[in-house]
């Protein structure tokens, strides 16, 4: 239930934004979920629904998926993350701290661990919509 901790962060941030924008009621919150972290969508949605404050009573949470794209800094190769080549332990380690991808993943072209996570790392609050 590591997703629960991430959900708490989403709710706290959404509340902060709602207060700043003087929203009386929050209608929609869109969260972008990067594939690298392999977040369990159902657990995240469940946690978000359980953690709703009163002003979020009628809020719908939408999750959008972002493919994890990695780019090698050594040779410039770009590739898409796939957990199929990882052992369950390695995939789980990346789930908790995506940066340990640098420990377990190498550029498929040149073998370097020096790559950039271009997109699809963790979770992002993409959009919040409500009534003023």
């Amino acid at each position, binding site marked *: *239930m*590591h997703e*629960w*901790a*991430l959900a*708490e*962060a*989403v709710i*706290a*941030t*959404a509340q*902060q*934004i709602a207060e700043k924008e003087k929203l009386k009621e929050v209608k929609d919150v869109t969260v*972008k979920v990067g594939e690298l972290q392999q977040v369990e969508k159902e657990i995240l949605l469940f946690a978000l629904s359980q953690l709703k404050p009163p002003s979020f009573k009628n809020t719908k949470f939408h999750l959008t998926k972002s493919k994890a794209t990695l780019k090698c800094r050594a040779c410039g190769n770009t590739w898409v993350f796939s957990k199929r080549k990882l052992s369950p332990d390695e995939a789980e*380690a*990346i789930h*908790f*701290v*995506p*940066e*340990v991808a*640098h*420990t*377990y993943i190498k550029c498929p072209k040149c073998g370097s*661990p*020096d790559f950039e*996570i271009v997109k699809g*790392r*963790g*979770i*992002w*609050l*993409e959009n919040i919509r409500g009534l003023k």
Partner: protein
Amino acid sequence: MVDPRTTIISDRLRAITRIIAVSSGKGGVGKSMVATTLALSLARRGCSVGLFDLDFTSPSTHLILGAEKAQPKEDKGIIPPEVKGLIYMSLIYYSRDRAAPLRGADVSNALIELLSVTQWGKLDYMIIDMPPGIGDVVLDLLRLVKRIEFLIVTTPSLLAFETVKKQTMLLKDLKVPVIGVLENMKMNKSEGIERETKRLGLKYLGEIPFDPRVEDAIGDEKKLFRTMIAKKIQEIILTKNIIDN
């Protein structure tokens, strides 16, 4: 798009009374040994203590503690295990015995991730083993952990102290509390570091003589507490009342 993680960090650290970063300008001054021994010493006095290894690319506190088999649990976040009476957190649980070659942005992201999902609970102290220098981890902690205090470790070498000067200047400019400077691995009588520390307007906490038994005490708490490093750290905590609340 907003990164939601930083919003929750102050909540995660709310029940921790004091957060002390054990830091140095240079590597190899015995910072990890001091941080671990300080944490263990406070725990032996009945305090609840967390030890957080933030030296991501060269972690070593797990070896000092003999914590190689420890693993965190998952329950609404990450629950660090108790090791030798300390609540112990390290990236090593995830990178294991493999290298973690991280660039600056990755270091920041890993730090923010761990700060936002680790459930520390109520602690009297969190002791942080910092990476050397004034890089990403220092800057991120100054930004994200407003109550942080620094304890600086140096060796008698003026080369090590030169970096301490720069580090403390930065901390002073940012009005970050510095508990004081601890002179580690002292081999000869000299007052140079004490004099220079006072010249910077900082408290000189004391000296720890070089003790060759420290190497043999790695992974063995009983042996560690027979070394000068443990004796002196306890002396500083007990008699000088510097760390105690």
